[in-house]
């Protein structure tokens, strides 16, 4: 039954999304108010129908309905209920269903919150969303249907990949998808604008909230992913420049650039053509990301299955979408170009530089990610691009952008008073130099130019944003996010350069010192859980002989797939993490143990939270601390 109902729901949604698309033509013959009314209702029905199919699949998972191939390959009787639910999007078929569900969600939201935008534009936007939904539904129905049956019906399932059995991973994919798919809104907007050859600044300020929402979800998704990698992979790392990470990071960079260019377009009426192009490119990068992850051509934790047919389908769609929208852009965009004068000291100019650097960074990461694929396809040799490339590119291109944040905040549109700006910011810069010098000198006691530069720039940004905040007394999106970036950079820099680590063989009862701490290895015990058995290490942490806490890192063996997983144990305070992971057993008395000391790693998560908070204020309006009514 589930297979039939599921398939019917998917087919109905596909038919309705085609209807939705047809309004792009029908609006010429039908009254526009009716068009809008129909489109809105159709998008609601699509959302309901896709949500039902999603819930149906969840129901199949929760009731262990192994007659569905997808359930049988990704779930198991012994799997905890919460993971049975998250297994719905744990593999390819379900995650594409989630993709299209999120797309339908954004589609209906456009219809719902569209008061200030002409109905003509909205109907076109919904039509574009409709064709996108249709594509993904066809993709599901033709190549990756989660409702496919399996015969004979297995008694038990194959279990969810143990890597994915982690609380961080329950919400990581949905958040990421909300962000990824959210880029379809500016895309639909861009195409609608190009078709209608008209744009107004109020529309742009409306669009900015959507872009902000997508940016916020993407930030949440990426930081959850990092957080998960740090806790789950057992290597103490949080970012690997893995192609799939890059696939999510490129749209993030592009959408960050978009956020800034929209502001200029909105306030000054320039860069409009660039904003439109950037909207198209951002969505293209999202689709490219989906292609990279789902085609299985990458060496990655995220590449689950290798199916060329699926890859080809997305690749063809990608080419059509990028090709058609760029064609439309080149034909129509000249009608949107406006000119206006601005001085080199103006806010416009700084934001232009910001966009230039962000675009180059995105391109550099794209190059590093795609080059190995191109080289292997053209038989130029199998190569990989090392992390040093990305690290170099990223620090060389990002620090200038962050440095420009402070002048950007204090500068004015058109032309800024130089002397005033330099006097004010010079003072902050001096302060940052002094703070950084003392901080690095006393706290970590190591001299390194890049570290010094990065921390100075971060503190400079934080100080000037805080000052502006105290002046305006408004918790505004940009200030909070910029402070978040500053905090993030401090976290990245300090934790990268001043971590210490030990990989040692420890005997039971032995001690090891790391920084000012001692770690004692007591014992290893066996633990039996519902779907895995594990060895649990017992470690005590001492701070100069004072007992602080005990650690229980685990080595799990999952029953079904016989996979071994490392669960690290971490003790965190604001300024440092101590991270203990069990390696392998050497003999009955000793184990290989991995211990890390990571200073300021918490600043990473703190910075991310601030950025997310900034995004929140950006969507729902800035918070005025001293509201006078």
């Amino acid at each position, binding site marked *: 039954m589930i297979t039939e109902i599921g398939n019917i729901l998917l087919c109905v949604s596909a038919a309705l999304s085609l209807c939705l698309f047809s309004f792009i033509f029908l609006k010429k013959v039908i009254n526009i108010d009716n068009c809008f009314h129909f489109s809105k209702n159709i998008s609601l029905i699509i959302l309901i129908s896709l949500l039902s199919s999603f819930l149906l699949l969840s129901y199949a998972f929760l009731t262990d309905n192994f007659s569905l191939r997808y359930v049988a390959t990704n779930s198991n009787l012994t799997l905890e209920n919460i993971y049975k639910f998250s297994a719905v999007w744990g593999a390819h078929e379900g995650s594409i269903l989630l993709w299209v569900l999120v797309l339908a969600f954004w589609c209906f939201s456009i219809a719902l919150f569209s008061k200030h935008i002409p109905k003509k534009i909205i109907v076109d936007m919904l039509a574009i969303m409709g064709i996108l939904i249709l594509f993904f539904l066809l993709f599901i129905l033709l190549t990756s249907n989660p409702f496919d049956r399996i015969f004979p019906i297995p008694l038990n399932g194959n279990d969810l*990949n143990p*890597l994915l059995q982690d609380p961080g991973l329950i919400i990581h994919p949905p958040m990421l998808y909300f962000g990824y798919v959210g880029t379809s809104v500016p895309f639909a907007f861009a195409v609608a604008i190009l078709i209608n050859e008209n744009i107004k600044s109020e529309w742009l300020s409306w669009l900015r909230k959507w872009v902000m929402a997508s940016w916020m979800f993407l930030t949440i998704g990426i930081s959850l992913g990092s957080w998960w990698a740090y806790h789950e992979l*057992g290597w103490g790392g949080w970012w690997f420049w893995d192609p799939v990470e890059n696939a999510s990071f490129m749209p993030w960079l592009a959408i960050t650039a978009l956020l800034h260019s929209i502001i200029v377009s909105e306030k000054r009426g320039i860069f409009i053509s660039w904003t439109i192009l950037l909207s198209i490119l951002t969505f293209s990068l999202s689709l490219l990301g989906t292609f990279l992850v789902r085609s299985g*051509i*990458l*060496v990655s*934790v995220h*590449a*689950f*299955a*290798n199916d060329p047919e699926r890859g080809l389908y997305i690749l063809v769609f990608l080419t059509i979408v990028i090709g058609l929208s760029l064609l439309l852009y080149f034909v129509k965009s000249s009608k949107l170009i406006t000119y206006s004068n601005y001085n080199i000291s103006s806010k416009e100019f700084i934001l232009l530089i910001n966009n*230039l650097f962000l675009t*180059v960074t995105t*391109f*550099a990461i794209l*190059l*590093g990610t795609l*080059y190995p694929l191109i080289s292997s396809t053209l038989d130029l*040799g*199998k*190569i*990989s*691009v*090392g992390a*040093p*490339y990305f690290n*170099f*590119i990223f620090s*060389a291109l990002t620090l200038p952008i962050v440095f420009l944040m402070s002048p950007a905040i204090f500068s004015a549109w058109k032309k800024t008073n130089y002397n005033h700006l330099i006097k004010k910011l010079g003072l902050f810069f001096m302060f940052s130099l002094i703070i950084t010098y003392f901080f690095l000198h006393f706290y970590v006691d190591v001299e390194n130019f890049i570290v010094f530069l990065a921390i100075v720039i971060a503190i400079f940004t934080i100080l000037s944003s805080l000052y502006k905040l105290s002046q305006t007394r408004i918790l505004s999106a940009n200030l909070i996010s910029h402070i978040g970036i500053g905090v993030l950079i401090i976290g990245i820099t300090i934790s990268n350069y001043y971590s210490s680590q030990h*990989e*040692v*063989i420890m005997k039971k009862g032995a001690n090891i010192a790391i920084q000012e701490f001692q770690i004692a290895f007591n014992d290893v015990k066996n633990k039996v859980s519902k779907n895995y058995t594990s060895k649990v290490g017992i470690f005590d942490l001492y701070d100069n002989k004072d007992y602080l806490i005990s650690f229980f890192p685990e080595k799990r063996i999952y029953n079904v*797939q*016989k*996979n*071994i*997983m*490392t669960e690290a144990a971490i003790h965190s305070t604001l300024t440092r993490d101590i991270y203990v992971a069990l*390696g*392998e057993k*050497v003999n009955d008395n000793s184990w*290989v143990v*991995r211990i890390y000391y990571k200073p300021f790693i918490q600043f990473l998560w703190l910075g991310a939270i601030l950025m997310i908070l900034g995004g929140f204020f950006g969507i729902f309006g800035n918070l005025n601390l001293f509201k006078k009514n």
Partner: protein
Amino acid sequence: MKITKTNKKRIIKILVFFFAITSFSSILIYALSQNMIYFYTPTQVYNSEAPIDSNIRVGGMVKVNSVKKINNSLKVNFTVHDLEQELNVTYTGILPDLFGEGQGVVMTGKLISKKIFLAEEVLAKHDENYMPPEVADMMKEKNKEMFNK
């Protein structure tokens, strides 16, 4: 020809633009060329196609019964093969959870000599159905060759 003020401005703009583009792209290409790591099979290493003492990647299947741990240290020696040739690998550190004999690995490191590979990083497969694509391709080709013989 007289250079007007607007023309002068335009020329400067174009020059700045070109300067920016060239400097950005040369930095990118330089950084990329410095960090490209090539992949070799054990057979290619045997045929001296791989450079000695520079960063490369090597992949293959871990030979059964070849993993030898050195007592009281994190050092481990093992052999990888591609059905045709073998290569000895030495590595110091913790092996990934999914590392095992008879399974595929991809390693980054340097050749100390034609016979010994010093691995700095060892990547193993991610789940039971998954094999590093390089190794999968390589094994597919080798199997085909063997079959044709």
